[in-house]
């Protein structure tokens, strides 16, 4: 392998505060990998960043077609970053279909880097181009750089011994190399990654390394790019960082919860997009004494978790919308038997099978109301990829403390999105207190703690505490079956009150901006970054707008009512037709307004700036 040249001084270096790049190509083109590697290099270079992968629902849509296009967007900056960027400033395009479906998103006058080698007739046809857009002048308003990546990769690898298919697959490394050069990023992290990935395939490894280097060198030597860009390090909290996706953070949160509670963990799950990766990640950690169980369906997954909870294990289940619908009957059992199970819903586009690979926030009311009878379950939500870690810990803590199933809502956007994460100091994490009852004196299965209203958690195997529970209404003290009218009324209210008491654990709501003013924006879940950024921008323009972002959806924070009254208008942006807004309106009789978008995509900051702006 050739020695890696140090980045020599480029023709000219332009400093910019932030940039959004989108890599797009065929699903077979390896755009996700390209994006992830670029992200890694960017993170290590000290920028703040957010990413957004967007891939087709099909496993492998036919090559070159419009539905086969896969994309990865990264937004990085020397300032704090909360979203993956509204529109790409730079679009790296690997084939005509990718150009066709993505060009409309590129900012006016943006930079377009095109792999001309893929703009051959068959591909143009598949993408529905009658004439080649590279030659008909339709790209005139962009800074277009034409690079025959296909051919350049072939040239670089002509002696590599790789076959045509393998060479074709290395194109993405060439493109990556070029982009790394353009933003002054080192190639080492990727080289390291390649070495690990292809440790058993030295030919492929060498080929990929060569392609990467060739792309990098091409950037440096070609006349093409007159300039490289520098995005300075962001001034972020010191400490050790890593990139993390929401699903990873959730999985690690689950493992952390078992450590912090000191008991074994159990996951009952059934694969479903976009939640499966949590199952995958947790299946790797058998040495934690963690049992992950791929059940025969979602019902069994939830039921197995209930069984584990009954056994005194910290139990979780993960799924997405349709799977959650199936779990609801069993969730009712968990709440009736007052057993702690954390139910994680990585929300996706609905209804029904809907848009499995797209994001949405439309399962909030399902979480709160989707069971028969009066069946209160606490609901919390995570607001960013890394926040999934904290939110998972919080969910586990509430479940155990209040002896109740707890819903944690994340969504496809934050589950797959990646951001740098200040790795928490493990020693500073608050323990999750678990106490199993062992004293048989005066034992009654449904006796309650006076503060939390939680009943005791009893592990089978404890002598003298043998007892029976089930889904029929239970006597308020003994937990035995009771058909008594008054008892039922008492129990229904007790269960409601227990969940309501969680309010005592909710810290004061933090307001972004002034504590009073014209507009209060109330958000929840994965829209945090877009709302936060939009409100910051509006405030910078002098608008009297503030925002709060809710972790707790059921119960709502106790101070929220007062808070909302300090603003003339309350606005609730949601990626649904208005679900939180219904809760706010009915709970506080406030004429909260909705901003809705149900396109399987996150809010853009600009969208929110303009739509919130209408209320200022």
């Amino acid at each position: 392998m050739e020695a890696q040249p140090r980045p020599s001084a480029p023709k000219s270096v332009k400093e910019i505060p932030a940039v959004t790049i989108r890599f797009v190509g065929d699903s077979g083109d390896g755009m996700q990998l390209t994006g992830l590697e670029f992200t890694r290099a960017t993170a290590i270079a000290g920028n703040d960043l957010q990413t957004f992968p967007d891939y087709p629902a099909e496993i492998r849509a036919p090559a070159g077609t419009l539905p086969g296009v896969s994309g990865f967007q990264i937004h990085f900056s020397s300032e704090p970053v909360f979203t993956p960027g509204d529109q790409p400033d730079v679009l790296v395009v690997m084939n005509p279909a990718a150009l066709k479906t993505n060009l409309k998103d590129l900012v006016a006058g943006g930079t377009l880097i095109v792999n001309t080698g893929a703009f051959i007739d068959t591909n143009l046809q598949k993408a529905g181009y009658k004439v080649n857009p590279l030659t008909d002048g339709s790209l005139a308003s962009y800074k277009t750089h034409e690079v025959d990546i296909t051919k350049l990769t072939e040239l670089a690898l002509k002696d590599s011994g790789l076959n045509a298919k393998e060479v074709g697959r290395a194109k993405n490394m060439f493109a990556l190399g070029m982009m790394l050069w353009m933003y002054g990023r080192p190639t080492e992290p990727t080289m390291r990654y390649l070495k690990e990935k292809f440790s058993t395939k030295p030919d492929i490894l060498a080929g990929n390394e060569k392609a990467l280097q060739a792309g990098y060198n091409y950037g440096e030597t070609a006349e093409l790019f007159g300039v490289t860009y520098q995005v300075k390090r962001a001034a972020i909290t010191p400490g050790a960082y890593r990139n993390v996706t929401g699903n990873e953070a959730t999985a690690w949160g689950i493992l952390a919860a078992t450590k912090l509670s000191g008991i074994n963990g159990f996951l009952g799950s059934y694969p479903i997009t976009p939640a499966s990766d949590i199952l995958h990640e947790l299946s790797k950690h058998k040495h934690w004494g963690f049992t992950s169980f791929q059940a025969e369906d979602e019902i069994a997954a939830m039921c197995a978790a209930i069984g584990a909870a009954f056994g005194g294990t910290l139990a979780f289940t993960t799924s997405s919308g349709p799977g959650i619908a199936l779990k609801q009957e069993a969730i009712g059992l968990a709440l009736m038997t007052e057993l702690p199970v954390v139910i994680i819903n990585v929300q996706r586009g609905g209804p029904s099978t809907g848009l499995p690979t797209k994001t949405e926030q439309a399962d909030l009311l399902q979480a709160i109301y989707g069971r028969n009878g009066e069946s209160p379950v606490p609901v919390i939500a995570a607001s960013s990829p890394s926040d999934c870690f904290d939110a998972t810990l919080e969910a586990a803590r509430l479940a155990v403390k209040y002896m109740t199933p707890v819903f944690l809502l994340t969504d496809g956007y934050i589950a797959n999105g990646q951001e740098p994460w200040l790795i928490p100091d493990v020693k500073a994490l608050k323990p999750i207190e678990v106490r199993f009852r062992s004293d048989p004196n005066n034992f009654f299965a449904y006796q309650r703690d006076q503060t939390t209203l939680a009943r005791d958690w009893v592990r089978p195997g404890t002598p003298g505490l043998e007892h029976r529970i089930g889904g029929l209404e239970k006597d308020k003290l003994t937990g035995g079956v009771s058909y008594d009218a008054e008892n039922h009324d008492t129990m229904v209210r007790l269960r409601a009150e227990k969940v309501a008491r969680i309010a005592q654990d909710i810290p004061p709501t933090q307001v972004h901006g002034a504590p009073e003013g014209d507009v209060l924006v109330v958000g929840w879940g994965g829209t945090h970054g877009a709302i936060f950024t939009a409100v910051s921008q509006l405030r910078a323009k002098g608008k009297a707008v503030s925002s709060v972002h809710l972790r707790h959806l059921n119960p709502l924070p106790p101070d929220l009512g007062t808070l909302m009254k300090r603003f003339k208008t309350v606005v609730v942006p949601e990626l649904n037709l208005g679900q939180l807004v219904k809760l706010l309106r009915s709970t506080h009789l406030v004429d909260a307004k909705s901003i809705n978008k149900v396109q399987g995509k996150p809010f853009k900051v600009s969208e929110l700036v303009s739509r919130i702006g209408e209320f200022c």
Partner: protein
Amino acid sequence: MTTPAKLTKKDFQSDMDPRWCPGCGDYSILAQMQTVLPDLGIPRENFVFVSGIGCSSRFPYYMNTYGFHTIHGRAPAIATGLKMSRPDLSVWVVTGDGDALSIGGNHFIHMMRRNVDLKVLLFNNRIYGLTKGQYSPTSELGKMTKSTPSGSIDAPFNPLSVALGANASFVARSVDVDPKHLQATLLRAAKHKGTAFIEVLQNCNVFNDGAWEHLTEKSVKDSAQVKLEHGKPLVFAKGTKGVRLNGFTPEVVTLGQDGVTEKDLLVHDEKASPSRSMLLAELLGPHFPTPIGVFRAVERPVHHELDQAQLAAAREKKGTGDLHKLLHAGDTWTVS
């Protein structure tokens, strides 16, 4: 807390009075269970009874052990989660023909294939008792019930065949009115490693009275049942008759007639492949005696043992989980 040196039947009776109809076959099954458990040498607190919904599924309330009366059809799934996470417990599933084979059919067969170490009692009364008399998946074709007043058009399941089709490692059949046999079968199930499935023929005297009369009535019992014993030929009717195979086709023969001796008879083999046990499951009245006993009992890898072995191996290889290490694995960078 210490466990009493020797438990008695009484120790397993809870303070709740059974609320089955007077005369219901469930009483006997409960009594045999309470009789057998003290002999297992397992502390009372280590027993858990998990059930679904149905008359049969009220069973756990009457056992003075840990118990979980769950939701319709889901007991196997709940018990699986419990057993996986608590291999130290002795977990029993009690279910009905509707609970196990109608709404719960899927969990039932998956439990079998996984060979989860659960003891499973299916009270087969060929009817929905608790909901007052609809046909169940074991009701006969043509059965008239509240929901099938012109007769059921669904061919019934044979619970044993369903279990065997799912490669069950232990499959047995017993009868509510045969306390001794039932006790012996419960004991065998208790000692089996893996899923031990017992179909208990049970009389619902309110909605399907006499469903098993044709084989349990004193007068016909001997000729209508054949007791299975491993390694023994299939002899019944007080030693006068037997079951012989003609090619693949079983037939009933009279011993001593046409020179037929015990040597000609089908010899029961608990260890055979599922198809062999299924052949026995296919023996049905009126042309054949109904086999009672253990149809199949083989050892195959037990679910939680495989799981625990993986956990142990992982621990051996990687040590116990370390949160700090986990979070710092892979690419990290330090901002100072």
